[in-house]
């Protein structure tokens, strides 16, 4: 529009010069016409702009295979058409806070509604924030514009791709949360009886099974069960890594995290998930797919952050530290040496998400506990951990 305005003022100047040099009626008419016409056009714009409404229709959830459209609905209640309505669509990803914007324009006839569909490509798992701004209605000649109220922010969750993880677990260990009991050792879980035996000197009287003892002449003592489980923590690190493939890698971290959790659940292994978001370190126990489903939207809404090993630091200072948990650390940061600095005594298996397999060669995997996962081929292969 600035070009048009400059052109218009140049035209006015030329016509004014023509009028001054010729001092003729026709030149005067042309000059006045060039002044009056935009004025009339602007007056019509004043009337029309007040009858323009712009709304947006956004799906709440976008599945990987599903439709990826957002639709703008422009309504014109005035009898005159709106020659051009223009606005800017900005889509920001929560993970990276990076923005894509696009200018869209449309023509709306009088007393009608236009739908302007926009399709989205290159989506990554996470939360999208769709903002509409700079909604302007132009006059007939594109010289003037007026602002129109923009629709509010809309949000959309892009669900992750899922991949299968082939998990090879070693022996279970004693765990208060376990749902399997040891066949060889008693424990202290009173809900489960490991064995019954006669009272021997030194046995705790509180363990006496009085009911059974009443039926027999001897005192019967109960040994309680020892629950066993895998003490697993899935730890998500959504730290920005600062390269061009950052967004894809981070998004893939979410996908890996959720896929890994699902894979554990498919094996019947309850586990904990932990992540850092919005100033808090979140930890949740996941025992079923339904429980995981409730946390997926929360996970997808997580924001990225620039500080390295933030989730790891929070874990180190949390109650989970020093409980000998097995940590599956999902990150896109290639500086894996820092992990042992933060958690020197913990068993950490790192799943390192990289942008594509070409970068795998750049990674010096000295530690066998690092499993690289390529974001571009995620979902196509089974990953062994």
């Amino acid at each position, binding site marked *: 529009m600035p070009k048009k305005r400059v052109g218009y003022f140049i035209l006015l100047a030329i016509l004014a010069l023509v009028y001054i040099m010729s001092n003729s*009626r026709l030149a005067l008419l042309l000059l006045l016409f060039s002044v009056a016409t935009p004025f009339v056009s602007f007056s019509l714009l004043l009337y029309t702009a007040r009858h323009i409404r712009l709304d947006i229709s956004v799906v709440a959830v976008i599945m990987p295979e599903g439709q990826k459209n957002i639709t703008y609905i422009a309504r014109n209640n005035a009898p005159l058409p709106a020659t051009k309505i223009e606005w800017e669509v900005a889509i920001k990803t929560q993970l990276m806070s990076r923005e894509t914007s696009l200018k869209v324009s449309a*023509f709306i006839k009088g007393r009608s509604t236009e739908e*302007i569909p926009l399709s*989205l*490509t290159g989506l990554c798992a996470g939360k999208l924030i769709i903002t509409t701004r700079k909604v302007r209605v132009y006059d007939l000649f594109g010289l003037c514009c007026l602002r129109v109220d923009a629709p509010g922010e809309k949000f959309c969750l892009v669900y992750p791709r899922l991949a299968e993880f082939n998990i090879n677990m070693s022996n279970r260990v004693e765990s208060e949360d376990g749902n399997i009991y040891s066949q060889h050792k008693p424990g202290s879980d009173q809900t489960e009886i490991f064995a019954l035996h006669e009272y021997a000197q030194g046995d705790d009287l509180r363990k006496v099974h009085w009911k059974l003892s009443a039926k027999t002449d001897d005192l019967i003592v109960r040994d309680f069960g020892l629950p066993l489980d895998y003490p697993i923590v899935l730890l998500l690190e959504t730290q920005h890594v600062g390269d061009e493939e950052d967004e894809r890698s981070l998004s893939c971290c979410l996908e890996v995290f959720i896929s890994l959790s699902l894979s554990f659940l498919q094996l019947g292994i309850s586990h904990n998930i932990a992540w850092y978001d919005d100033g808090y370190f979140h930890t949740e126990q996941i025992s079923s797919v339904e429980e995981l489903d409730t946390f997926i939207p929360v996970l997808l809404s997580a924001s990225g952050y620039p500080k390295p090993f933030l989730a790891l630091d929070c874990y180190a200072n949390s109650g989970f530290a020093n409980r000998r948990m097995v940590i599956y650390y999902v990150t896109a940061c290639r500086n894996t040496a820092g992990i042992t600095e933060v958690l020197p005594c913990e068993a950490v298996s790192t799943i390192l998400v990289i942008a594509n397999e070409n970068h795998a060669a750049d990674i010096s995997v000295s530690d066998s506990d690092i499993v690289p996962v390529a974001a571009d081929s995620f979902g196509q292969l089974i990953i062994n951990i």
Partner: protein
Amino acid sequence: MMKKNDNTSSVMIIKQKPDTDNLGTKMVLLCEFFLCLSLCAGSWFSLLSMVDIVFTKWILFPVIVLSPAILYLLFKKISPYFVFIYLLLPAAAFYVLKLNAVWDGYLLIANGIIERLNQLGISVIPFATSGVDTAVHVTMALAPVCILSSAVIVFGVIKRYVILTEVFAVLLPLLGVALRIEPEPLPLFLLVLGCVCLLAFCVAGSEGRSQEPRQTWRIPGLTAIVLSASVVLLCFLVLAWLFPANHYVPSLKTEQLKEQLTASADALRYVNANSDTIYPLPFGDLKNAGSAMYTENTALRVTMEKPRPLYLRSFTGSTYHNGKWSSLSPDAYSDDYTGIFLWLHYNNFYPQLQLGSYLALLEEAQTGRVTIDNIALSSKYFFAPYEALPGLSLDSASARFEKDDTIFSHGLRGTRQYSFDACLPPIENYADADLAALQLDSIKGTSAYTKFVASERVYRSFVYHSYLQISPEEDSLLRDYFSETALDSMKDSDRRVVVNMIRKYFSESFSYSLEVSPLAAGDNFLENFLRDKEGYEIHFATLATLLLREAGIPARYVEGYYLSAKDTGIYTKMTSVTFDMPDSSAHAWIEVYEDGIGWLPVEVTPGFYTLTKSQENNSDKKDILADNPKYLYLKDKKAVRDDIITPPQNESGGFDQKLLLIPLALFILLAATLLWREWYKKKIHRAFNQQDSRKAALYMYYCLIRLLRFDGVKTDALAANDILKQANEKYPHPPGIAIESILGYIYRARYAAEGCGIEKNELACMSGYLHFLAEEIFKGKKLHHKAIMIFLCLRYPAY
């Protein structure tokens, strides 16, 4: 269509192509077609109406109308580049190069344009043509140009090159308008309509620029075109009604502005930093001249090989009106005198150097080199004496000899240093001398003289045609101040006698003074001089020129610089002397045309000439001056003062533009009122439909109170029961509405706890009651109250 994403994210937003329906595509094509037609036809018909040429209408008009149509179809089906480069251009080239008749046609068109230019005063010699079948030749010449220009316009419309297309279509007609060659109104209207609609069309469909001409999207521009066409039509009609052709008078202020602009442009070009150090020449603008305040700073530096007195002339005034000398109008060079100066220049006859050219014919002519260094004056003019010869700096490459005007310099910034040869004047004083001495028999037989005489005769006729004219106001003024007898006696006298009479009159009746009282608005420059009897060179030269013209002697007013005999006297025997001429050497004099010789400078300012008894009254006629007292020429002063010279008529024409303010003010008031009403109605609508139902109900209650107060019911806003009771008494039986329920809603809105809202049907009931009351009140009111109700938006609709 993928629009460029401005992004740092991997997410891409793609706008989807709209569905292209047949009807939409057809409408687009139709719009484009009519735009092409409008622009081509408008442009060509405008141009044809501006030039007087004969052509075959039944051939050319179809070409103008059909060529955009056919080209549009071709460009849509085949690539426009292919059509243009491989079909049109070669065909046009072949056509033009092979057909001689086409060339004749172009010459005829050129002559038509030349004739128009000549009417504007731009003299150009027409081309020689065969004169056979002119209409056919012109038509054959115009046809390929029509087709090619239509191709450019159609291409621009299809590709949406708005600026290119519109500039191409409107450039020549606009140029014509600037030169005051006006086209017919209808084609021009069509052209303007096409331009405006094209702009609106492109704005409306700006997202849909197609890369392939065959693929068009649903570009909804038809409504925009219709709307923009309506706006154009409305504006044109209103403007044509406001400024009717028969009442239009060119504005004086615009003319003044034009002069100011021209003067400003000249000042930028020709004035240098030293110009502020001197008092400048008025260059004919005597009304604003005022007192002469010379600074004695150097204005010109003149180096003469053979020092002699010189009149270095710059500005020459040919026409006097209202205190201003100006050049001849373009009309003076038209009709019988069209191209006369082209012919004269072609024959090396330059009126500005006529005297020098004549003196060069004399056997004993001596020349000397003169070099001028313009220190502080305007570089627009060449300061050259009458005896200057063509050549050196005074040739067509360095100087512009503008018809019969002064000599101008070339170049953007003019010329400040120039040299030329000048004949040494054989006579010291042209006014007093016997010029028979210059008309020697020895030169009369020479071919150069014959050629000079032939040219001079032609020029003389122009001089006598142009330089005897006086405007009626000045003529009337002179006749008021001078008796008929005196003026008639001057007519019968010789040039020298008349000059002497004027000189004597000036010497005895006027005094020289550089300080003159400033001219008040409405004062007449000449009349003030005649009344006050005081002035300096510009006054005397002006009056003398007009008196000589009254006497039938061609004369002109001249400004320039004068190197007097007093300044050069002691240097005449020296060579190459440089004179620094201060601004006080500025001078004004007259030049009088001597038949057979040319323009001669004549001094008329007292103090610059000497009257001798022997030079007085050379003729046999009776000397009125000798017999009559000096003031006999003047009528009684009192009688003159009592004569009120009617000021010029108000030239702004019969249309007082201040009257325009009244309908404009009314229109603005009406528009403001309508806008306010719209806004208020929307406000009410928003308030009634707001999300908070309690607030909506309370607003309806407020509207109820407002309505009843308008009806004259005294209300206490807090006493809802009383209010409704009064309303019900006055306007009972609202259909389907129970007053108690309305009261209930109002109480609930006012007192209910948070979370208790008013239902939608309850709000509808309240608005229905409001509407019922409004209608009942409206019915019972008089007309002016009804109008007030409408204005105040008290006729609430049911929502």
